[in-house]
């Protein structure tokens, strides 16, 4: 049995569902629309370039050389925070693999009992008590999971994100658990940078006008006019945003919760995640542990389709259902069954799903395809899984 081996390693990011774009072989993760992000970059780099070209030579000589040095440090910090926010995984929750999705569906159906024909089944909600507060966990039909508390589905990126704050087009990414502190530091440092440049623009113009007159100064340093304009508009938006997020952090709330009014106080509803202490809330959000990404973007996909084809051939005759076997060999990513998946294909999807996430400890299924369970036993097994909480 000869087979053509695929020599190229397929990394997991290539098969991730959702509308993200990846760069640098999975190291960088962003939203699909990046236009506004490029604008942000252009504005920051452009304004700073003008500052270094027009203001710094004069101010370094007439005031202090520390001014451009500090500006450079601040600029580098702003860029580092921006890129960190834009390029990191915000805390995307991977979608449920077919078996997990089926398991959850079984639980839901068991909990709902018999729905009379024609009636809509009740909404899929799980109630959880956190800190003496009932929190409703909603079911995500796209990701096929019950969203953890504070997670939300971003429709732009088509992912569920943990501790979802908002989708920011200016950074070209969602802001969630993993990159919120970088986002906050970005807005904070950008506010400082804007104030810094604005202040020294004024100082520069004033100092020069004393010598040369106001209009002559503007003619000599046209860049200053542009900078002042950009800084003026940026100040109102970014400083305001920083203030808003400082308020949110002190209360340990997300923008998403604030907009929805989740903890607005009516019906004696209180934020169960807040430590009721501003310092503690700030410490948790800004200095808490650095959460790892659960996506494993750069992991190598475990399956090689041709290898399965060669070893599956001898089994196709011996297994009871021959049709699922060719399907397993074609898939390199777990198929998520939806309402269109025919029922007889489901066991094969389950078998292929079992192979693809194979943890490092699991060896036997790798070279050999285990005999697939026939559809009847699967159904029996799933019926016996009925549990009541």
């Amino acid at each position, binding site marked *: 049995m000869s087979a053509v081996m695929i020599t190229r390693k397929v990394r997991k990011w290539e098969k991730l569902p959702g509308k993200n774009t990846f760069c640098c072989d999975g190291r960088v993760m962003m939203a699909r629309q990046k236009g506004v992000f490029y604008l942000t970059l252009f504005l920051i780099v452009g304004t700073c370039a003008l500052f270094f070209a027009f203001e710094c030579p004069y101010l370094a000589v007439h005031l202090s050389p520390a001014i451009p040095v500090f500006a450079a440090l601040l600029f580098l910090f702003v860029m580092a925070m921006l890129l960190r926010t834009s390029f990191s995984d915000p805390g995307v929750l991977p979608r449920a693999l077919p078996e997990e999705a089926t398991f959850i569906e079984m639980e839901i159906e068991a909990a709902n009992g018999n729905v009379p024909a024609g009636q809509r089944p009740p909404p899929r909600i799980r109630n959880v008590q956190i800190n003496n507060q009932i929190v409703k966990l909603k079911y995500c039909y796209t990701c096929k999971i019950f969203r953890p508390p504070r997670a939300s589905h971003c429709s732009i990126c088509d992912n569920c994100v943990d501790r979802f704050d908002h989708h920011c087009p200016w950074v070209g990414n969602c802001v969630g658990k993993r990159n919120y502190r970088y986002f906050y530091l970005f807005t904070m440092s950008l506010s400082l940078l804007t104030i810094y440049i604005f202040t020294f623009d004024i100082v520069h113009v004033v100092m020069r006008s004393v010598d040369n007159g106001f209009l002559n100064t503007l003619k000599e340093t046209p860049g200053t006019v542009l900078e002042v304009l950009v800084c003026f508009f940026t100040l109102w938006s970014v400083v305001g945003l920083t203030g808003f997020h400082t308020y949110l952090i002190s209360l340990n709330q997300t923008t998403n919760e604030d907009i929805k009014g989740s903890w607005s106080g009516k019906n004696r509803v209180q934020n169960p995640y807040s430590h009721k202490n501003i310092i503690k809330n700030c410490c948790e959000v800004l200095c808490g542990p650095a959460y790892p990404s659960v996506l494993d973007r750069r992991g190598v996909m475990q399956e090689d389709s041709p290898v399965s084809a060669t070893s599956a051939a001898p089994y196709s005759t011996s297994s009871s259902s021959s049709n699922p076997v060719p399907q397993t060999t074609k898939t390199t990513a777990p198929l998520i069954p939806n309402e269109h998946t025919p029922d007889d294909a489901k066991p094969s999807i389950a078998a292929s799903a079992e192979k693809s996430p194979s943890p490092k*400890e699991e060896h036997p299924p790798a070279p050999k395809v285990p005999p697939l369970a026939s559809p009847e036993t699967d159904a029996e097994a799933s019926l*016996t899984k009925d549990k009541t909480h």
Partner: protein
Amino acid sequence: VRLQDLQQPAVSSKVFVQRDYSSGTICKFQTKFPSELESRLDKQQFEETIQTLNNLYAEAEKLGGKSYLEGCLACLTAYTVFLCMETHYEKVLKKIARYIKDQNEKIYAPRGLLLTDPIERGLRVVEITIFEDRSIGSGR
């Protein structure tokens, strides 16, 4: 009996141990013993495994002097320090991976079960695969 020695293990079913959110958003799994495992595993054994995992995750997410120090130092370097250093959480995750491997080898594999590291399921569930009971592997 090692899992590798079992010929053609067939997956009978999978159990998914869900997250326990009663203490908030910290990573914690329910210790409720799934009925599907009743024939294979002791309730106490299962609870011990899950409880140890919960304790390890609590260690990873602990808010305290050490995590604050790490956070502040990292901020001062504009987080570039994480390019060369491993975070505390990552260190604990490696510990958890070793623990799961150990548990699989000692307790779960001999009973025809397999624990999947929750990190491979987005820290959402602890997936326990139940393999078909072959006469070779049914030692308790």
